[in-house]
C-alpha cells in the first residue's frame, strides 16, 4: 500500500507576457498566450495497493496491483477565442482520473537437473476519465487534442467531460436510419437499419458532410506481455511477446494509398463497375426511418465510387482500424560453451554464442505497417492518428560473448 502526492511545475519564464519577435527585424507582435502570474503547481495524488505472493519454493509468484491516480490543477494551455486578444491561456484546470489494475505471474512449471522452463506474463487494464475541465467552458463541447493541420475538421479525437478520454469521431457514408426496412422477394419485411444507403440512379453512396460519426476509442481495452525461456543443459531459448486488445486509430497512410487506388481494395469492379451492397431509399416514414429496396444498380462511375466516396481520404470510417495485435517481439537461442572447454583453452573464463531475431511477426488487423505507430508532432505522440509511420524493422544477429 502506498500513497503519494507529487507536485509538478511548468516551464521557466511563464509568469510575464513577452512579445514574439517578427521576421521583420525590430518588429513585434503580441504573444498568443495569456499568462497567469498566480499559477499553482500541478498536483498528482495517487494510491496503489499491491500484493506479492510467492508459492511452492518460489516456483509460482503473483503480483497484483490496483491503483488510482488523480491529476488536478494541471497546467495546460486552454483555447480561448482569439477575439479576446490571445488564442491560448495558461491555467490550472481540469481533473483527469486514471484507475487500473496490473497483474503479473511468474512461474517455473518444470525444473529438473537439466531442463528448466520459466514463464512470466503480465496484463494490465486502465480506465481513464476526464472528470472536469476549466471553468466557464461549455461542457457539451468536447476537448479536442491538437492534431495539426493535415487532419483538420474531418477527423477529431474528442474527450468529453465525465467520459473516457480520446474518442475518434469522423466522416462516414450515409446509412439507413434506425427502423428502416425493405421487402424481400418473398414478401418478408427485412430490417435494414445501418445498411449503406445508395442512390438508385447512380448506385453510389453519399458521404456525410460533418465529422460526427463515432468511430471508436483510441484507448486499448487491455494490454500485456509474455516472456518465456527454456533451458536445457547449455542451451537457452528466450522468447518475448507483447499483445494488446482493442483501441482504434485513423490511418492517413491507408487513406492516401487507398484513394489514389494503390491498394488492392479498389480492384473489384475496376473495369465493369460493381453493385454495392446496400439499399435504396424509396420513401421516408413519419418517424424518420426509411422504406427501402435492395440495391441492384451498377455504379455509374467506379472512379467516383472508390476515390471520392468509399475510399476517400476524408472518409474516416473507411480508414479507422482496430489496433489489437499480438507481436512476436524477440527470440534468442544461446549456447553456453562448457567450462571444461574454456579451461582447456586456458585464458577464457567463460563464453557463449547466441543467435537472435527481433520483430519477427505481428498478427493484427491493421492494413498498413504497424498498429503501434502514432503521429509525432514535436515531442508529443498522438495515438489516435497514424501519419506515414515507418514499418517495424526485423533484425537478425549473432552474438558472441567471451569473458577473460
Amino acid at each position, binding site marked *: 500500500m502506498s500513497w503519494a502526492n507529487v507536485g509538478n511545475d511548468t516551464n521557466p519564464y511563464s509568469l*510575464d507576457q513577452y*512579445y514574439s519577435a517578427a521576421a*521583420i527585424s525590430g*518588429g513585434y507582435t503580441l504573444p498568443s498566450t*495569456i499568462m497567469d502570474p498566480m499559477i499553482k503547481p500541478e498536483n498528482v495524488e495517487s494510491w496503489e495497493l499491491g500484493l506479492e505472493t510467492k508459492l511452492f519454493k518460489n516456483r509460482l509468484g503473483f503480483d497484483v496491483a490496483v491503483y488510482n491516480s488523480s491529476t488536478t490543477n494541471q497546467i495546460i494551455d486552454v483555447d480561448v477565442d482569439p*477575439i479576446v*486578444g490571445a*488564442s491560448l491561456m495558461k491555467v490550472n484546470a481540469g481533473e483527469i482520473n486514471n484507475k487500473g489494475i496490473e497483474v503479473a505471474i511468474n512461474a517455473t512449471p518444470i525444473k529438473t537437473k537439466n531442463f528448466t522452463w520459466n514463464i512470466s506474463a503480465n496484463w494490465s487494464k486502465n480506465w481513464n476519465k476526464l472528470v472536469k475541465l476549466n471553468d466557464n467552458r461549455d461542457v457539451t463541447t468536447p476537448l479536442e487534442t491538437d492534431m495539426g493541420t493535415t487532419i483538420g475538421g474531418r477527423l477529431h479525437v474528442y474527450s468529453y467531460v465525465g467520459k473516457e478520454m480520446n474518442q475518434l469521431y469522423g466522416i462516414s457514408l450515409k446509412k439507413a436510419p434506425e427502423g428502416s426496412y425493405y421487402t424481400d422477394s418473398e414478401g418478408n419485411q427485412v430490417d435494414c437499419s445501418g445498411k449503406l444507403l445508395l442512390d438508385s440512379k447512380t448506385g453510389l453512396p453519399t458521404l456525410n458532410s460533418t465529422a460526427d460519426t463515432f468511430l471508436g476509442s483510441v484507448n486499448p481495452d487491455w494490454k500485456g506481455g509474455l516472456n518465456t525461456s527454456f533451458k536445457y543443459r547449455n542451451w537457452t531459448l528466450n522468447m518475448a511477446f507483447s499483445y494488446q486488445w482493442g483501441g482504434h486509430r485513423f490511418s492517413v497512410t491507408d487513406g492516401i494509398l487507398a484513394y489514389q487506388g494503390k491498394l488492392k481494395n479498389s480492384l473489384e469492379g475496376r473495369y465493369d463497375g460493381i453493385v454495392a451492397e446496400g439499399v435504396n431509399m424509396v420513401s421516408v416514414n413519419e418517424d424518420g426511418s426509411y422504406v427501402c429496396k435492395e440495391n441492384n444498380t451498377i455504379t455509374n462511375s467506379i472512379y467516383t465510387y472508390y*476515390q*471520392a466516396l468509399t475510399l476517400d481520404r476524408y472518409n474516416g470510417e473507411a480508414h479507422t482500424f482496430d489496433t489489437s495485435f499480438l507481436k512476436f517481439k524477440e527470440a534468442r537461442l544461446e549456447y553456453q560453451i562448457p567450462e571444461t572447454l574454456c579451461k582447456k583453452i586456458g585464458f577464457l573464463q567463460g563464453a557463449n554464442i547466441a543467435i537472435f531475431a527481433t520483430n519477427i511477426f505481428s498478427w493484427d488487423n491493421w492494413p498498413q505497417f504497424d498498429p503501434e505507430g502514432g503521429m509525432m508532432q514535436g515531442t508529443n505522440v498522438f495515438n489516435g492518428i497514424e501519419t506515414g509511420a515507418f514499418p517495424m524493422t526485423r533484425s537478425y544477429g549473432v552474438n558472441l560473448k567471451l569473458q577473460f
Partner: protein
Amino acid sequence: MKKLKLIIICGFVLGLLNSCTKDFKETNTNPNKTIVGMISATNMFEPILYNSANNWIEDTWYYNDELIQFTAHTGGITRREHLYYLEESRDWGGFWNFYANYGKNVDHMHELAVEENDKSLEAISLTFKVLFFANMTDMFGSVPYEEAFSGRKVGGTLTPKFNTQKEVYEFLFQDLEAANDIYATNPTFLLPSMDGMYSGNMASWRKFNNSLYLRLLCRVSGRSEMNVGTKMTEILNNPTKYPVFTSNADNATVKFSGSDPYINNFGTTTESDFTKSGRKLTRQLIKMTVVTDQNGNQSYVDPRLPIIGKKNTVVADNPYNIWIGTKSGCTNAEMNTVDKGTSWLNYKIFCRKDATSTYMDYAEIQFIYAEAALKGLISGGVSAAKSYYEAGVRASMEKWSDLGAFSETPTSITSAQVSTYLASPLGSWDLATNKEEFLGNQKYLALFWVGMEAYHEYRRTGYPVLTIGEGATYNDNIHPTRFGYPPTTMSTNAVNANAALSDMGGANDMKTPVWWSKQAIR
C-alpha cells in the same frame, strides 16, 4: 563544539528561508525577451502592414476567387472550396483568427500610440482596425466589437458579448471619423522608410481612411435607416474635409521590396501550385470578358483578361488557342472533362517576390459613386452614373496596364483600347439594358484580386448572377451566405455566440444571411 554545530545549522536554515523569495521577480523574468508594453508603437507597424497584406492576397486566391467563381480548383479534388467544402476549424476558424489576430495587434499598437502621443500611428491604427473589423463582420455577421481584445487586460473579459452588424458598422463609422480628425492635424510619421504603402505620407493615409468610409457606406446602402446618401454626399462635396482616392497613385497598395523578409506571399510559389495543377479561370469569368460571335470565334477580349490570365498552351488540350473556362462547382465525374484546356492565372504577374497587395483601389471609388448616382443616393442621376462608371473602368484598366509589364510578353492597355472597350458589347454603358446589373458585373471584374470584396459585393447585390454547379453539394448547393463561428468561439463563449445567432435568425452555418445582404433585406 555542540553549540557551534547548532549555530551553523541555524544559519544554514535561515539562509534557505531567505533565498526563497529573494530575487523572485528577477529570476522569473526572461532576460532574452521583451515584456509586453516595453516597445513603442512603431515596432508593431511593419508586421501588421506586410503580414496582413500577404494574408490578404492568400485569402483572395484561396477563398474569394473560388467562392465567387473567378477561379475553380478543378485540377484535382484536393481543394473543394468551389464546392463549398469549408471546414469549421480550418476555414471558419482561419478567417476568424486572421482578423482577430491582426485586430488585437492593431488594438495594441493603438494603446502604445496613445501612450506615446504618436498621433500618426494612432490614426493609422484606427484605419486598420476598421479594415479588419469590417471584413470580420462581413464574413461572420455579428461579432464582438466593444468587448473585443480585453481578455489580456486587467478587468477584461474572456466571454465578450457580440455586437450586431449594425452596431459594428456604427462603431466603425465613429472610428473612421475619429481617425479622419487626427489625420486633419497633419501628424508626422516618425519612420517613413517603414511605411511600405505610403512612405509615411499622411495625406495618402487620410485618403485611404475616407475611401474605406465610402466602401463601408456602400456596403450598408441597402439599409435605409443608415441614411447613407447624406454621408456620401457630404464626402463627395467636401474633398477638403474628406479627401478620397483621386487616382491609382493613391491606391492602398503594399509594396514588397522583394528581399527577405519583405517578400510577397506568392514570391516563391511555383506555377504548378499557383494555377496549373489546380485553380483555373472559370466559364463565368471567360463569359464576362470574351465576346464570341455567331461562328463561335472569340472576336473580342477584355484587355484585362490577358494580364490576369493566360491561355492554356497545351496544343492537344486547346487546339484552337482560345480562352476556355472551367466549370465551378462541377461534379467529380465531370471534372476531367470540364478542366481540359482551361486557362490559367497569369503566373508571371502574381508570383513575384516584389508583387504588390492591394487593400483598396481608386476604381472602386468610382464604382461606388456610379451606383450611388444611379440609385439616387447622390445627385447626378444616370448621366453622372455613366461618367463615374467610365472613370472606374479606365482606372481599373490603367491599374492592370501597369502590371502587364510583368507578363511573359509585356503588354499594356492604351487609352484607345479603353475607349474601344467602353464602346464594345462588353463595356458599353448605353448598350446595357439592366444598368444595376451591368454595374454590379463591372464592379465584380474591377474587384479582381482585391481581398474578399467580390464575395462581399455578391452577397450585397446578387451580381453577377452565378450558376451554382451540381457538384457544390457541401452547403446543399447554396452559395455560402456567411462563415460560421469557429469551434473555439462556440465552446468558450457559447452563451454570447448563441445569442448572436438567434439574433441573426439562424443556425451556426453558411446559410444565414448577414444584415446588409440582399437576401436579408428582401
